């Protein structure tokens, strides 16, 4: 028994073993720091890349808005009255003399109305809640709501 204790004591107290322990601990710390730093770097690099993407997309949205406006105007230019008249004449159309116009009564025909570009502000718009509460409430609120519903259902079941 004593012999075993001696071996353990001598092994435990050997200087090189102590140094090895310190080095191992230091290296372990270094590895942990390196791992944390690596994870941090990776996450922050990805966040930065996403941030850059967001900034790039914001510029792209702004540019596309401008391009969209330009395209609308280009289309309007192509459909302008002078262009359309020129194209119609090229295709061989001529203006109808008033005495050649034939008027017909078409049942159900509705006279051409002025343009509607958006819903009328006169209408009563029913605003329905489209997002379920689960998407907005906290965990505590969800638990509270479940408990309240459960108590309510139990009380309803009682005669």
């Amino acid at each position, binding site marked *: 028994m004593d012999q075993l204790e001696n071996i353990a004591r001598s092994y435990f107290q050997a200087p090189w073993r102590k140094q090895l322990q310190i080095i191992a601990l230091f290296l372990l710390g270094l590895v942990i720091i390196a791992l944390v730093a690596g994870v941090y770097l990776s996450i*922050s690099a990805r*966040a*930065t*890349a*996403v*941030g*850059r993407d*967001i*900034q790039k997309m*914001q510029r792209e949205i702004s*540019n596309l*808005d*401008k*391009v969209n*406006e*330009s395209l*609308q*105007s*280009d*289309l*309007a*230019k192509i*459909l*302008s*009255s*002078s262009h359309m008249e020129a194209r119609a004449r090229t295709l061989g159309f001529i203006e*109808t003399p*008033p005495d050649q*116009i034939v*008027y017909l*009564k078409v049942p159900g025909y509705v*006279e*051409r109305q*002025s*343009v*509607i*570009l*958006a*819903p*009328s*502000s*006169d209408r009563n718009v029913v605003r329905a809640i489209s997002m379920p509460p689960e998407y907005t409430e906290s965990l505590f609120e969800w638990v509270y709501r479940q408990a309240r519903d459960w108590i309510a259902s139990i009380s309803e079941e009682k005669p």
Partner: protein
Amino acid sequence: MKEREKSRRYSILGAFLSIFPFIIFLRMASIQVNPDIVRKMQEIGDAFTNPLLTLTPARGQIFDRRGNLLAGNRKVYEVGVELQDVENPTTIAQTVSALLGVDYEDALYVASLESSDSMVYSPLTNNVTEEEIEKLKVIIEQMGAVYTGKRDENTPSLNGLVFSPRLGRIYPEEALASNILGFVNRMGEGFYGVEGRFDSLLKGMSKVVRSSNDPNRAEEMPSVPDGASLVLTIDREIQRAMERIIDDAVAETSSDSGTLVVVNPRTGEVIAMATTPRMDLNQFWKVDEIFTNETPYNRAVSQSYEPGSVFKVLTMASGLDSGAVTPETVFVDTGAIEIGGTIIYNWNQVAWGPQDMQGCMQHSLNVCLAWISTQIGSDAFYQYLSGFGIGHVTGIDLDGEASGRLKEPGDNDWYAADLGTNAFGQGVAATPIQMAVSISAIANDGVMMAPQIVKSVVSEGYQHHIDQRVLGMPIKAETARILSEMLANSLETESSDALVTGYRIAGKTGTAEIPTPFGYTSNETNASFVGWGPVDDPRFLIYVWLEKPGTSQWGSVVAAPVFQRAAEELVVLLNLPPDAIRKKLARD
């Protein structure tokens, strides 16, 4: 050297050297605790990392009643110089001068400016199109590729030349309805017409936000709602037809100018408003070349004139409504009448003998109408004219409306003779839109609708319809119908050039002498015609004014045919069948 002395010197050197970090520390501490310095440093830092960004909403579009785009936006560029980066101002000036048409001297001056704390950038030109920028990019690229290696101040370089996109105004229909639309200048400010009147509404609200260049602090940009879009009451096809007709009329009659207004008397909606001159709105900078010598931008609303005999419609309406006369009242025309010491004659200086009220209108007798005004009485007569809106702005949604002038008893410059002369449209000034609106009361059973140009406003996803307003009811419905009948019969009896085959039209010609500083001494006239139809269900009222026609001075000769041409095209474009067919279709 003794050890002690050596140590003392080291101590002094150490103390001396430690002063620097101490000063640095003090400075750091003072920066950190002094709020003024903190704020200033924060501002300097923010300027680099979080610059202020102005979010400018897209200017609202303008449509006609059918949804055709009349004013939109397009991507344009501002070209300028980053002054600290400029290497060769001459190259920049030559390039922008040749490619973008910028004045060489101006460009050279701007590119040669020294950069300073207060100025690091200076614009050269704006409204540069995408195509021009593409050409510029090619030149910059080629120049960068050719002139490489060692550089000196004479090396051609476009360094410092920059361009940034923004939205600029475009008018796809060019000059169409230019007098109604107005225009937007390079600074984005609206002038004249709808652009001027609704500038702030179209422009929307800009927002200044602090953006971040740091990608780790990238945030969603706040959205800025676009400016409101407008839907006008005008119809593009009708407007185009009316502009063509008035242009032809001005050329054929050698007139100084022409104005043609089409309104719906039932609603007050302006369907077309054509005046001369007009301009391509995409070249708005030519406005001073086209509208010279105080030429109004839109004569229909901004130029008042003495309308002459078309004004007799209002006098007769007042006479009939007040009961001073009836259609059967007979007036014996002796060719002259004295009112307030002034003798008034007929247009042809002839006595027309006994005339009923229809005859007075048909032959446009000044003497008869002046007599009617005396029968009404000055107070009642001017009350009626005021009720018709003469002397007041109509409130039309356009910039620069003139009120005209109606002298009334009690005014310093009103004389008793004015009662007689005003009765036939002399000594009173009104704009074409005022005349059209006031006479529309006769076409619309005595109800005078406010003229309307903007039909609805589209803002934040909703279309807000503008309510039609009643301006007043100056006469009774019965009076209006009687007068319409009288005027329709007058045109038919005299086989007027204004008649339109298949449609019953009511109307009145007008020829007015133009006042000069020495009285009505000039041979020049203003020729007008007002007419509406179909008489039993009026859908349009057309007002024509030709200023100083050269071929004939008479409204019946030059203005009535213009009305006829306009009405003939209008009924087709409005899908309005001839009266007989319309009544037959209604019966079936």
